[in-house]
């Protein structure tokens, strides 16, 4: 599994010069800042700083970009915990328990838990990558469109566990999200729901919609209040609590492990990644828990499960990038750009000829996780002072950052308008008790599910026997049904 000669060369390569290490801290800080501001995302940060990497050697360039990736992976959790606004799509599940903890005055603790889980998750992700990089990449090649469709369906079933009081309301929100995601030019070239507008041909941009939905449900609600944490005595920022939170995360080793494995496995699947893995991990942990009633009300296990999964997805997505040359998402697509700028093409040939560089990247990322913990503590300490800012200043400020962030994503006014429209929709949904997170899942997975279903239909020629020839898809289907039925059976037996 491990090529020890290449590993030895990698250690020599990393220890021969301090130049590759010089870019790690700036990269982590850039990632943390871009991840923490709603609207600015990790791919945006990597794209903005991509030209800088021209002047670096290949290893430094990749370490710099992966540092942004790692920092951003945790950065998105900060506004999710402090304001219930996930900075990135991968921090949606972090908000479920992180924000209630903040409201209880445990913001420092929650951020500490998130940071430790994120650090350990990233480390475990890269460890798995080091051990199984080649077999993992080969396994991905066996996933056809129907398997991908089943993965998307698996993600969509999570709507059922989002803690909505009414399952039908959760389903309706999720289905509405799926329908919204299909707006625009279909795979066959048909225009659906554009009503003649050229701006809608590419569909609704998911990240601005996500920000609008979450920002609305929270920022509009916060309008009448003075501070995020109502009790003045609980507004203090405690370095000790951040460390206590980090220590608390270690009390759930199996949650960390399961979350990391889920993250790596889902991270390898192109197009799915961390935005699904955090939800899958959260729901898996909630299902397993003997006492799941605390989930959604500030249970530390929820934060651990979500953060370990979304961070370890980075390792998974790097596996497909390095071994197959396939970017799993926008962030790895930008990284592929860095590969191209240095005349390097990822894939089996690159792996065979440059295993020492592959190991250098992996080892460099191990070191990054340790640096992330140190830099992250300082960043968390500064950023958690947001609970002491009066909301009358915070609300318009965050709205402006979200609107301008959306502008930077789309490059035109479609992004800001999307934020506004979904802000209004989100406010109404919250007013009538519809879970906005369900709509977000529908939005993130709907288009992918439709595309994969269409490809399966075309490959099978409409024959159902094709489904029986796909054992992996059948296994996922059985697991999906079991995961839905198991809680019901458990409930019946208990009663």
């Amino acid at each position: 599994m491990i090529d020890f000669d290449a590993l030895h060369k990698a250690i020599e390569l990393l220890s021969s010069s301090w130049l590759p290490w010089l870019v790690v801290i700036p990269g982590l800080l850039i990632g943390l800042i871009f991840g923490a501001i709603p609207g600015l995302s990790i791919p945006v940060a990597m794209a903005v700083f991509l030209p800088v990497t021209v002047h670096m050697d290949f290893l430094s360039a990749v370490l710099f970009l992966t540092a942004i990736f790692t920092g951003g992976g945790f950065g998105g959790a900060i506004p999710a915990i402090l304001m219930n606004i996930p900075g990135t799509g991968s921090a949606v599940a972090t908000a479920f328990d992180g924000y209630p903890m903040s409201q209880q005055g445990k913001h420092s603790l929650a951020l500490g838990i998130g940071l430790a889980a994120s650090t350990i998750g990233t480390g475990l992700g890269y460890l798995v990558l080091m051990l199984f990089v080649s077999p993992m990449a080969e396994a991905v090649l066996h996933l056809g469109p129907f398997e991908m469709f089943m993965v998307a369906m698996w993600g969509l079933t999570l709507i059922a566990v989002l803690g909505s009081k009414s399952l039908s309301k959760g389903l309706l929100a999720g289905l509405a999200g799926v329908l919204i995601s299909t707006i625009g030019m279909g795979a066959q070239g048909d225009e659906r729901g554009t009503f003649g507008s050229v701006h809608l041909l590419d569909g609704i941009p998911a990240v601005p919609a996500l920000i609008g939905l979450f920002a609305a449900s929270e920022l509009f609600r916060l309008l009448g209040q003075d501070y995020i944490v109502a009790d003045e005595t609980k507004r203090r920022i405690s370095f000790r609590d951040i460390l206590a939170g980090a220590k608390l995360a270690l009390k759930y080793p199996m949650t960390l492990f399961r979350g990391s494995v889920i993250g790596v496995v889902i991270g390898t699947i192109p197009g799915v990644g961390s935005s699904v893995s955090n939800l899958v991990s959260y729901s898996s942990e909630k299902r397993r828990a003997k006492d799941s009633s605390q989930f959604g009300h500030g249970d530390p296990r929820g934060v651990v499960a979500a953060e370990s999964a979304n961070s370890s997805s980075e390792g998974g997505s790097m596996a497909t990038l390095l071994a197959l040359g396939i970017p799993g998402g926008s962030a790895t697509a930008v990284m592929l750009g860095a590969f191209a700028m240095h005349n390097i093409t990822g894939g089996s040939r690159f792996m065979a000829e440059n295993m020492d560089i592959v190991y250098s990247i992996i080892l460099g990322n191990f070191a990054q996780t340790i640096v992330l913990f140190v830099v992250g503590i300082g960043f968390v300490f500064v950023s958690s002072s947001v609970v002491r800012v009066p909301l009358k200043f915070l609300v318009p400020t965050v709205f402006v950052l979200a609107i301008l962030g959306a502008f930077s994503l789309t490059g035109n006014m479609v992004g800001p308008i999307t934020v506004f429209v979904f802000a209004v929709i989100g406010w109404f949904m919250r007013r009538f008790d519809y879970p906005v997170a369900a709509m977000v899942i529908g939005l993130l997975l709907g288009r992918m599910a439709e595309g994969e279903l269409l490809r399966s239909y075309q490959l099978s020629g409409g024959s159902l026997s094709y489904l029986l020839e796909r054992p992996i898809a059948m296994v996922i289907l059985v697991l999906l049904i079991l995961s839905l039925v198991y809680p019901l059976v458990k409930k019946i037996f208990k009663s």
Partner: protein
Amino acid sequence: MRKFLSKYHCDWGHISFLVALLFIISLYLTDAIMASHKAENLMMILPVSLIGIGICLWQIKLSTRLRTSPQSRDSSEAISAQPSAAPRTETRLFKYRVPIFMGLLGLYLVGLIYVAFDIATFLFIWLSLLLQGERRKILAFVYALLFALAVTWCLKLMVPFPVTTLFF
């Protein structure tokens, strides 16, 4: 002794929301069918829309169900629970703060399109602060101005596409 009354309880706000949703889903489905009747086009949209319409109708039914409610001291309690200490104008402003803020946000977008990013951002932050009752008017003005200039400058540096500004 309490008297019990049986009556239809309608949550009109929720029903309006559901009717709007029902209308939008139906409109979208019609548009998709008109775009193409092929299975490739409708294999996802048709079943999802039909289930969505079904749930909407179910929710409307739930929102208009027959409820038995006790007629007791509720009316007098409801009256006494009304906030009466605050001045009327402030209460109204507080009550309609969300729609007012939504309107302001809409105007901000109009400002971004037709005026300039820095000016629109400054006005949005400044008016938001005043709307939320910030009494330190100079602080509100200075904060809005500095933040608007800083954030627009950063945006202009960061993005490769045109950002309309007045000051730089």
